[in-house]
């Protein structure tokens, strides 16, 4: 079995895989950064008492969470052109990943905020701090500690989800495996290599998660 495994072909295709890896890496970084902004804004709207902000945010979060990512990708891929919006596949893909992860990130941040004891808020209110000051000095610093690990978990999910962009022919890592398969009929070698590179990204992010958890968890009270 292993004797049949053709490492020579893998090396031959290595430049293609590295291009794919680079694309996956860049798509992920950009999508995560945008998703974080989307998530923060969506969360701020979701917890706002103003209905015009709150209900659209709930609708957005629920629609994303109740439908498969692949459907969302196809929806944008086929839907945007009919609205007259013509952008390259890679941008459609990043948009889909941003909207998808943004909804999950909004909920992660909200859970972090809710995890802060109500009494902390009341102490802030009693001393005259306004909403923004309470968020900035009391709630968010304490929420951060519990939010960072699931945020990095979401980042890992996003990297793996970006594989779906191969279906709208974005030239990322999984797409490299598909190309090699169609040219050489060696799917085992192709997707072994693809999997290997995803694992590399995963372990880097995981190490980052563990490091940040040690650094950022705040001292417990009481």
């Amino acid at each position, binding site marked *: 079995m292993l004797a049949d495994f053709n490492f020579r072909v893998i090396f031959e295709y290595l430049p293609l895989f590295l291009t794919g890896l680079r694309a996956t890496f860049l798509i992920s970084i950009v999508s995560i950064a945008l998703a974080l902004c989307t998530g923060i804004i969506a969360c701020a709207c979701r917890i706002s008492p103003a209905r015009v902000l709150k209900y659209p945010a709930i609708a957005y979060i629920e629609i994303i969470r109740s439908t498969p990512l692949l459907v969302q990708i196809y929806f944008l891929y086929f839907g945007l052109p009919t609205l007259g919006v013509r952008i390259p596949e890679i941008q459609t893909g990043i948009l889909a990943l941003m909207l998808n992860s943004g909804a999950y990130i909004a909920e992660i941040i909200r859970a972090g905020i809710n995890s802060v*004891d109500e*009494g*902390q808020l*009341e*102490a802030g*209110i*009693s*001393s*005259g*701090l*306004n909403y923004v*000051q309470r968020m900035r*000095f*009391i709630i968010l*610093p*304490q929420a951060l500690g519990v939010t960072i690990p699931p945020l990095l978990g979401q980042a890992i999910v996003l990297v793996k989800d970006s594989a779906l962009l191969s279906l709208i022919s974005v030239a990322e890592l999984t797409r490299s495996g598909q190309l090699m398969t169609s040219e050489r009929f060696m799917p085992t070698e192709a997707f072994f290599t693809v999997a290997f590179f995803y694992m590399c990204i995963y372990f880097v992010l995981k190490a980052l998660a563990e490091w940040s958890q040690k650094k950022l968890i*705040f*001292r*417990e*009270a*009481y």
Partner: protein
Amino acid sequence: MENMIEFKNVHKWYGKLHVLNDINLEISRGEVLVICGPSGSGKSTLIRCINRLEEIQKGEIVVNNTPVHDKTVNLTRLREDIGFVFQQFHLYPHMTVLQNITLAPVNVKKMSRKKAEAIAMEKLEQVGLTDKSGAYPGQLSGGQQQRVAIARGLAMSPEIMLFDEPTSALDPEMIGEVLDVMVNLVSEGMTMCVVTHEMGFAKKVADRVVFMDEGKIVETGKPDEFFDNPKTERAESFISMILTH
């Protein structure tokens, strides 16, 4: 005497539960009022209405000539004048003692950091904790945390201090150190509302005791009179209950 806090026919409901039932109460400047009563009688709710941590549905509360539940009231301004000490301290766990105390003076009163820190050290001296200014709340005992919480309230130079069972979460050996700090405050002429069952404290410094039951003020009196000769049966059974504990 001038009224500092005034409750006029105040009612509050949680759904069907009538938590505050026609409260009328006047607290004058410099007065020390102790509020006691069985669990669930509405003591916390009553003092939380004073700085508008709670809304009311009927009646009016006036603090320092400001109608607290008026739509146009400047809440920040109102709360600057009222320090609140919680049963569970609620210090900010991610900040040092000094940061806990200076947060509001710097951000609400817009004081310079230097001045705020000088005041904080002054207040820490008052509660006997100057050596803990760099510590985090998690490194302090319960009694020390509660004294820091009092210093945090005092740093805003309030005219009124509200205490909601400040010693109930403490081990018995730490109750004394917190009560001592509060007794010292009384001698400075602070207007104080204290929810507590510490009879010793009430007898020593309170001007009046208010006894609540089922959302109503059932009895009001001088501490000695109230604890030694309660007029109502409910107060009598309550006092005998806290005595046997």
